[in-house]
Each structure stands twice: as C-alpha cells, then as structure tokens.
C-alpha cells in the first residue's frame, strides 16, 4: 500500500511538470556522428521479430562486430507490427527513446517531418553501398525534397506471380507467360481445363489487395506519382488518370474472369486457399511460396509443382511494376547514444551483413540483389521484380493507415461490381484531402 501511495503521489507531482515541459525544441534535426566510444555502455535497438525468426544470425554477427569496434553491448528489443505506430508515436516523444529503431517504409515520412530522427546526411557516405540503395526504399528515408537522409534502407519485399506449373502444363501451357496477353491466354486454358472443379480460380485476385490492383494501374500509367503527385505545395490525385483507370480495368477483368470468392477479402488467406488445391495462381510476396507448401498449414506435396515469375507486363521483357515494400532503420533524435546507434546501423547494413541477409530477404542495395537471387531459385522472381520498375506510395507525412484502408475498400468495391472510375474518384478525393492536410 505504501508503495502505491508513493507512486500515486509521484504521478501527481509530475502532472504539473509534464504539462508544462512537453514542448520540445527541434527546428533543425541533430546531425549524426558515428561514435566508436562505447566502452561499458549498452545501447537499445528495436528490431522487428522478422529478424528474430528469419535471420537471427545476421543480428548476432552485427552485435559481435559492434562490440569489437566500440566496446558497447547491444540490447535488442524485439517488436511486432501490431500497434507499432502508437508505440513509435509515444517512444519517440519520450526522453528515453531507443538508440536505433526499425520501422516500415510507409511510416517514415511523418517522423522525418516531425524531426524525430537524427540527420544522417553527413555520414551517409560511410554507409556501405549507400550510393546503390534500392530507389524506392532510399527515397522513403529522405526528406520530401530528397536532399537529406534520415533513415537507412534495411530490406525490401516485392510481390510476384506464384503459380501451379503442373496445372498450367496440364492445360497445355508449357512456358511461363511473358506478357500480360500471354498470361491471359494461359489462364483461359487453365480455367477451361478445370471447369469441373467447384470454386476454381485460375488466378486468385482478392478485391482488397490494393497493392496488386494498383500495380496494374502503374503498369499503364507509369511508376512515378502513383495515387497522387506533388505540384508545388499541393498534392493532386492520379488515380483518375485515364491511363491508371485503364490498368485497373485490366486487373478487374482478370479478377472477374479468373478469381472466385474473394471480393470482400484481402490477400491474408490466399496461401491457405491455394494449398487447398483449387487455385492455380496468386500474386504474393516471395515467402508466400513457403507458406503454401508449409508442412503445418499448407500442402508440402505442392513443393515441386509451384513456380514463381515476376508478374509480366504489357510487352515481353517488361514486368508489371511491383510495390516495393520494406523496412528502414533510423536513429531517434532523443536517443541517449545517437552516435553509437548510428554506428550500429552502419555495421548492421554493411555489405557483409546484407549479403548474409540476402538469403532471407531482398537486401537494401542493387549490387547485392544478385546474391539474393543466387540464394534460392524461388528468389529469382522477387529479385527481378525489385530490380525491375517498382512504385511507392506518396512520400508525405500525412500518409497513414487510413488511406491504405480507403484504398483497400475502393478496390474491394470495384471487385464487387462498382464502377472503377467512380470508385477511384471517390477514394482519390478522400486521400488527396488527407495528403493536403
């Protein structure tokens, strides 16, 4: 009881203080230095559990190298994506922020604008491969005008076509389709050959998978300025551009023709559904292949029957641009040891660690993608997709999960029978209003 009372009193005293002192000051962001002076110190780093489950060895190697160079220990605190935005919002506000953090590349802009990260521009040159970072990923870590760097690319992800070789071959499709037209022909054959299978999808395209739907739009519109582009200070929408709408119609035609039972869902269940056997192709991230044949949740007997290719584009040799998702790393401005945090990021993203990481995910630099592609045959397609043309959401601090929800729902409505142009107009109004604040 005494402890409780003491604590309550402590909170009460602090009330007044916190009410007055919460106004921080940050006109110019702190400039980073790379500190090697860490003897007896311990830095805190937030990494996503992707690394914990996927590439713990890379993290351990980086920790060891960091210890050797600076003498400091690293306390890795594993994070999950659930509710991560609230966690960042609050932790970056507080005096005891971690010394380095990972965050999604769609989350960076708002923290960069708020001055929550240390400015890495001055030391960027000392980060290996920093001149060859993947374009979309590098852009997500920069200020709006691209002049300053606040976040370091970590790894990327891209969606590809995962299909059932056996079903395609049984339907008479011997070679992987090279253009969208060929893909359409192939799917028509697969569909005809499996007409007797109830609920069969030659290509499963869930309506709310907006990244895939918008990729088709990007295929005809171009990869720059998807969703909206900036003219001076104002964002203007590009979703209603006739070329973009055309691309979306291509997606919608495929969806209507070849996809069964997914209009009101997103891609979360597509691997499990594909494992059930009545889906011949999906558009998914590279790891989803493993998910389909997972001995626990999927069907391991499909192992040799699956193949992946980058989603073909209109012409042979081109691809339908993939959305380049991924993660960035940054040093919070309120970190206790920003210099050591930056040094850890420098080590964690150097060529050695990234080459090792390339066995599990698309590394952050173009020159390392080859290592990724060589690591496994299944990686070739995602590597191709990442090297090919890719697109990204508007780099604006006002972009948020609400916009993604709005877009998911708009494409879901189109898949459900809504008029593409009208639905896109509606969501464009919403999103542009958000972006312009």
């Amino acid at each position, binding site marked *: 009881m005494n402890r409780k009372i003491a604590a*309550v009193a402590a*909170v009460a005293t602090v009330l007044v203080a916190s009410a007055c002192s919460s106004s921080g000051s940050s006109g110019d962001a702190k400039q980073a230095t790379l500190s090697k002076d860490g003897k007896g110190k311990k830095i805190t780093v937030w990494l996503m*559990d992707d690394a914990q489950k996927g590439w713990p060895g890379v993290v351990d190697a980086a920790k060891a190298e960091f210890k050797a160079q600076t003498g400091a220990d690293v306390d890795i605190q594993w994070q999950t994506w659930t*509710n991560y935005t609230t966690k960042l919002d609050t932790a970056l506000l507080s005096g005891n922020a971690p010394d380095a953090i990972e965050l999604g590349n769609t989350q960076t802009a708002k923290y960069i604008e708020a001055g929550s990260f240390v400015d890495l521009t001055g030391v960027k040159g000392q980060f290996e491969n920093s001149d060859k970072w993947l374009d979309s990923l590098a852009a997500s870590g920069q200020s709006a005008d691209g002049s300053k760097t606040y976040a370091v690319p970590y790894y990327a992800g891209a969606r590809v076509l995962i299909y059932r070789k056996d079903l395609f071959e049984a339907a008479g499709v011997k070679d992987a389709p090279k253009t969208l037209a060929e893909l359409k022909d192939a799917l028509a054959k697969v569909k005809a050959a499996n007409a007797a299978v109830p609920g069969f999808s030659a290509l499963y395209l869930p309506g709310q998978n907006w990244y895939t739907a918008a990729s088709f739009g990007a295929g005809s519109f171009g990869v720059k300025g998807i969703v909206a582009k900036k003219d001076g200070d104002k964002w203007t929408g590009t979703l209603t551009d006739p070329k973009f709408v055309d691309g979306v119609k291509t997606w919608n035609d495929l969806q209507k023709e070849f996809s069964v039972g997914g209009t009101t869902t997103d891609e979360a269940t597509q691997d499990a559904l594909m494992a059930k056997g009545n889906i011949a192709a999906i558009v998914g991230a590279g790891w989803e292949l493993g998910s389909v044949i997972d*001995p626990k949740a999927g069907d391991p007997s499909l192992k040799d029957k699956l193949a992946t290719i980058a989603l073909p584009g209109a012409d042979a040799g081109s691809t339908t641009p993939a959305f380049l998702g991924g993660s960035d790393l940054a040093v919070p401005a309120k970190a206790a040891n920003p210099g050591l945090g930056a040094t850890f990021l420098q080590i964690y993203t150097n060529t050695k660690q990234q080459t090792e990481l390339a066995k599990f995910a698309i590394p952050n630099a173009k020159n390392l993608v080859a290592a990724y592609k060589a690591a496994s045959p299944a990686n070739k397609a995602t590597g191709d997709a990442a090297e090919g043309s890719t697109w990204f959401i508007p780099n604006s601090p006002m972009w948020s999960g609400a916009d993604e929800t709005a877009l998911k729902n708009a494409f879901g409505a189109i898949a459900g029978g809504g008029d593409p142009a009208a639905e896109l107009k509606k969501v464009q109004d919403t999103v542009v209003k958000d972006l312009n604040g």
Partner: protein
Amino acid sequence: MTTAAPAPKVRATVRPTGENRTMTWIWNVIGLGFAAVMAFPIYWMIITTFKTNKDLISKDPTFWPSSFSFQSFQTIFDDKDFLPSLQNTLLITLGSVVLGLVVGFLGAVAVARFSFRGRSFFIVTMLVVQMVPLLAIIVPLFVVMNGAGMTGTLFGVMLAYLVFTVPYVIWTLRSFIVNIPSELDEAAMVDGCTQWGAFFRVILPLTLPGLITTGVYCWIQAWNEFIVANTLLSTGGQRTAMGWLTFYATTPTRGADYGAQMAGALMVSLPVILMFVLFQKKVSAGLTAGAVKG
C-alpha cells in the same frame, strides 16, 4: 419474452416435486443447447490447434480432426518468451485487480451508504470516465507515466488499469451493496461488533457475489488488455502475454502462424478459466444458499 422463462422457476426453488423434475430436464436441455452454441467458436479454435495440414487443406471444413497434432503446442512451449510474458501478465493483473477492488469497494460503500455533498458529481464523473475512449488518450497517458518514471514498469501499467477498473467496480458494486439492508450493520453492532467488525463480518461477506462478479470482470479486462500495456511497457523491453501473441501474426516476411497463435491464446486463457471454475465451485455453495441470509 422475459415473462416465459422465469415463470416455473419460482415454484421449483420452493418445492422440487416429480413434475418439476421433468421440467428441470427440459430446462437442462435448453441450457445445454445454449452452452453448445456459445461454445462452438471456442471448440473450433481448439480443434484448429490440433488439426494437421491434411484437415486444414480439405475443401470442406472438418468437424473432428482426422488425427491429432501437437505441433502448435510444441511451438508455444519451445518459445522461451512464453513464461516470462505470462508472468508479467499475471503480476499486472493481480496488482490491478486487488488495487481496483480495494479502492473501488471503498468508493462503492461511500456512494451506496451515504449522502454527501458532491455525491452526484462523483457518480456522474465515474460514468463519464468509462466513456473516454482509451485510444484517444494513450499519448497523454504515456506522457504522464513517463514523467513519473513509470513507463517500462509493470507497476505503471497496473496504475493505468485503475482507469477502467475503479469506475467499473464503484458502479457495479454499488448495486450489490444497496441490496444489503442497512439494519444488518446495526444489528451486528448491537451484537457487540465494533463498527469495523460489523463491516468486515456483515457487509463484506454479503457483497461477495458482487465482488466476485466485478473481480472476474476486472481480471479479464486486465488480462486481455493490449494497447495500454504494449505502449507503456515499450521503453523497458518487457511484454505481456497479449503482446507475445502478436509475435505469431503476419509480418512482411512471413505468414501468420494461426495454429500457434490459437494454442498460445488457449494456454494464456487456461489459467484464468481454471482458476475461476475452481473458485466458482468453492464459493457457489455460499452464493446459492441465499446471500441475504448471510
């Protein structure tokens, strides 16, 4: 509708006869039917944790696993973060429930037994507090706790949980306390109890059903709370069981392990359920004997 069910109840409690035994069986069947409907989603969750991929990939849902797999549970028990996070949840929950019940009970006695200036204001405030969306105040809540140096500590989370336990306990317990005739306290005092003796020997036992109901509610709210704990604990590197469960959700580099997540949720919930069922059996005799009789 409300009139139909209670009707025969009155008689049954009074006089169990042969005719009523048949009625009891009819009620039993209805009661079991209701329990079955309520239980189905839980049943589905449990068999999912045992299903092998053969059942998972069958085109139609299967209502009974063709063979049992314990792989999901294996994953959970091999996870070295499982027990520490469960321990954090247990400590936070215990602390916040005990604190909430003590603080709330005293407040409930005040509003149920006394008229005093500010009583209405206090009651309405307690109601308004429950209307405040937690999500909307999470940032200032963090600022306060951080200022007090209590972010990253289990005790900070316990204190934060008082926000929803105390008002609830006061509101709900009040309705139980007013039903205890105040003559009872006086009778006890006449019998030679001191004021506090009367309080502990009369009021407290009679409020037991209410205390259990509100205690269980608070327990479950605290046990299953995620956002406040996740946010406030962020700076300390600790997590609760709910936070631990999110480690099995989908990420950009792998799919969700639903089997493990379900098994984990089951393992996390089981202590609560067992505790309550055991507890319930122990106190139910006292409860059903007719609380007012003491």
